[in-house]
């Protein structure tokens, strides 16, 4: 599962008041090459919850993203390249999503298939 997808998902178990974002526990991470598309990344940027992305990417072993980001960084090719590596390229192959409120774990295998 890509970090972009993780950035959209929220835990909706009964009683949870804030199920976003899932904490990521990574066991196996893969990087799959995707064509770099600056316009696509610039369009995506405002839709991203940045803090959640940074935390998840670090949990997956990628530490290049800054703690904070604003749209002025979108002019920086260096930033866009880092954003690109994190967002569409990194895949959580094995691991778990953990509900931030209840601590309930959802293994990646379970997320895709029960």
């Amino acid at each position, binding site marked *: 599962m890509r970090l972009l997808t993780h950035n*959209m998902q929220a835990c*909706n178990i*009964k009683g949870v008041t804030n199920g976003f974002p899932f904490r990521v526990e990574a066991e196996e991470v893969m990087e799959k090459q995707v064509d770099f598309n600056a316009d696509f990344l*610039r369009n995506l940027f405002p839709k991203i919850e940045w803090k959640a992305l940074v935390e998840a990417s670090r949990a997956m072993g990628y530490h290049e993203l800054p703690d904070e980001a604003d749209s002025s960084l979108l002019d920086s090719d260096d930033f866009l390249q880092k954003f690109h590596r994190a967002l569409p390229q990194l895949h959580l192959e094995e691991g778990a999503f953990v509900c931030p409120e209840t601590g309930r774990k959802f293994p990646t295998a379970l997320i895709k298939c029960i």
Partner: protein
Amino acid sequence: MLFSVARKRRCCTKFLGTRIYPSCNLCTMECHAQLSVSTTQTLKCTSSSNVQSTPEIEKKYVHRVYDAIAPHFSATRFAKWPKVASFLSSLNSGSLVLDAGCGNGKYLGLVPSCYFIGCDISAPLINICADRGYEVVVADAVNLPYRSCFGDAVISIAVLHHLSTEERRKRAVCELIRVVKRGGLVLITVWAKEQEDKTLLNKWTPLSDKYVEEWIGPSSPRVRSLSSSKLQSIPEMEENALGEPLKDSKDMSGLKLQETPTPSCEEGSNLEMGSESGSIGQNQQEFFVPWHLPYHRAEVSGASATALANGLAKKDDKKGAVVYNRYYHVFSEGELERLVSHMSNAVIVDQFYDKSNWCIVLQKTL
């Protein structure tokens, strides 16, 4: 099921610089943002547990059926509906699109400039999507596991007609609106009661009373004999999963009837039903629609043996298929519009009838 009852959810629209609460009066969830207390918009909160609990009829005649027929169903799901394709193509580049009820993922990735994620109640169908490299989860249409206001668009193609109560259908619409951003678009399509080919309804089993056991018991004399029905093939010449052209024939016994039926200009609304079912009123909207799973596929599946033993499915030796029934609430003209018109945070921007489906496009306003 992985994701169950939702309660409260954070709602945010980062690009606007302010946070906005969903104001759908029919949403049965509370939205507590961790934000300014001066914001006074809150949702009417009613108990969400009832509307989100799956009724038995859906468990038996939607969830389990799709699980059992998933590979076969997927093999027949390849034609892209032009209206859906054009909706997706009209979205801006970089759009985040959710397909809620994505089935075998036929629309995921259809437009390369958009980013698609999908969910479906059926784990076997989600497996098929995952094997194709799509970003998908198993989830329930009445409780979507996504943060509010994330998407640019969401599509719900042939999903809501599997929900058996109006409250659940409203709840699902609420969820679709919730997950898109302000200004985001929602495309919903459902099967119409007003079928272009009126004879199709003769092949369906009407539910005279919902959940009445006589209709679904295997020994009931009131259960319609399906062996006399002849399935129609999809009219266009298209390739099946093996790359062979499809032909009109009895070989096509497993094909779904409805996605691209032959257009008909005939008016008339008499729904003649067979004598086994007695007289059916023209207001009938609850049906079992058969799916013929060929024996060779049923054996592979394994689920069919259990289904046959439980009376969930029947054998049709003439067609060499295990016959499953899928529950449908088909929508009458105007019903979809009425369903969505109560939503205070979305407006209808388009609605149309196409290939025996009622379709609507909503835009989230707040």
